[in-house]
């Protein structure tokens, strides 16, 4: 019996090895389809935002609601200080990275539920990973949905190079949602204006960086950066999402301007001159 596949590439994959880089290069030749090209992914920080309570969260919710007529939003949530507590206890007790990943998921889910309840009267649902098939319907009908930012890797979370904290957390999970759906934008809402040369909360000499490529940031070898390092790494390999924007959600109007395509905060790109 001989197989006869739709394409030559299919035949080559059936007989060849998926570790063959020449064969893999052929798999990106077909033009990709953009699945949700008019949706924006907005990630609301945990420690930086939600943990600040109503003073920070309520104005942002109002701004999200005001933008619903103009922009579709897939809203992800960070974990924050409770995740840090869970990680601290878990590390002391010898938990592996995969178990810490489960703990981080629970905390970002709590935050997603709270953001969801604040948006509930506008008919906006909270979806777990198994419900992402309904996402297009919710975006068409209600123009937004809330998800927990943690990617659902649980026990299959990769180890970090250093330490034991899961390297792929809520920034990464939100970024990958924007990549797979070829969303219109990826906006990280934090409590700083964007990327600095050091943590501006700890170093008064920290200098603001309005725009940089992922490679430039890596070359700076900063002790701390405003998004998870895995996002910078994945940005370089991404097929659709070649830039991200980090904005200060404590400043009214920043989210609106970012959704309108304006350069506020820091824009980090995969490509120079983009």
């Amino acid at each position, binding site marked *: 019996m001989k197989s006869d596949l739709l394409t030559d590439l299919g035949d080559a994959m059936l007989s060849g090895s998926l570790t063959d880089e020449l064969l893999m290069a052929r798999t990106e030749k*077909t033009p990709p389809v953009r699945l949700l090209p008019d949706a924006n992914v907005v990630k609301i920080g945990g420690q930086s935002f939600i943990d600040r309570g109503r003073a920070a969260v309520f104005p942002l919710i109002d701004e999200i609601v005001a933008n619903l007529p103009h922009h579709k939003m897939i809203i992800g949530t960070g974990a924050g200080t409770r995740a840090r507590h869970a990680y601290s206890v878990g590390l002391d007790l*010898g938990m592996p990275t995969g178990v810490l990943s489960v703990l981080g998921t629970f905390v970002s889910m709590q935050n997603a539920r709270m953001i969801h309840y604040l948006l509930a009267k506008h008919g906006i649902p909270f979806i777990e990973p198994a419900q992402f098939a309904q996402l297009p319907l919710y975006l068409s009908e209600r123009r937004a949905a809330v998800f927990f930012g943690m990617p659902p890797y649980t026990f299959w979370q990769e180890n970090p190079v250093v330490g034991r904290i899961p390297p792929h957390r809520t920034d990464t999970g939100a970024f990958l949602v924007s990549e797979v759906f070829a969303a219109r934008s990826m906006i990280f809402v934090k409590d700083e204006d964007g990327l600095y040369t050091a943590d501006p909360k700890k170093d008064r000499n920290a200098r603001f960086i309005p725009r940089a490529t992922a490679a430039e940031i890596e070359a700076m070898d900063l002790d701390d950066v405003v998004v998870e390092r895995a996002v910078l790494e994945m940005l370089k390999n991404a097929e659709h999402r070649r830039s991200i924007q980090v904005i200060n959600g404590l400043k009214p109007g920043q989210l609106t301007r970012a959704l309108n395509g304006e350069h506020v905060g820091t824009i980090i790109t995969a490509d120079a001159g983009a």
Partner: protein
Amino acid sequence: MSETADGRHHVASFLMRESLVDKEVLRSTETAVVRMLPSAHVIKVGGRSILDAGRSVVYPLVDVLAQLLGEHKLILGTGGGARTRHVFSVGLDLGMPTGVLAQLAAADALGNAHILGALLAPYGVVAIPPEMFGHLLPLFVHAVPGVIFNGVPPYSIWEHPPAIGRIPPHRTDAGCFLLAECFGCSTLTLIKDVDGLYDRDPKGEAGAVFIDEISAAELERRNLATLPFDRVLLRLLGTARLLRRFQIVNGHKPDLLAAALRGEHVGTIVYA
């Protein structure tokens, strides 16, 4: 609870106020880690190499697995095989992104898990639904001789975009590796249709030289054109804390498997 000068509020912990991106902070989290299932063995049964090959290959292997279930706790993962290659080719033609291909591939490996589960059902070993597999694994391992899962890690639409092409990098070898590492299992064995690793594909090229033992770093350096396992395993070995090696064993010689579980060197060992 404490409020700090920056206006943020925190639960007291040694990571409070800290950036989890900060290099110094991350170094402080390098602590000893517990092994959840130290006596269990993880075995990946190849899709295309074993299950697709049919009864002449699968039945003798199932007989050996049945014997081993009497003395070892086995966690069996399955590959997706030819059907995964087919769904990749149709998905690519339709312009699907990497994350969608990863989501689709989970179904083929799950089908194979159920085939293996039907053959091992007389021994009380069945395929466990992926949704409950991870969380209930220790319960299953203590209650029954073994379990089967689709080796696919639950990355789905959250799969990482690869450096080259669109094929999901975390496939079933990676799913078995990450599981064995997280649960601190005793061994990881990849059952394929070759004796182990060669310097080139032994099926296509005469004169391929067998490599009986090699480090992940050396293998990265040699950058062989093909490998008999997911390439991402080399990187995962580099950061593994508990699983410092895995062995590739020829499933067409199933008696080797018993020796492999005893820790004997019967195929190719790749170590960290």
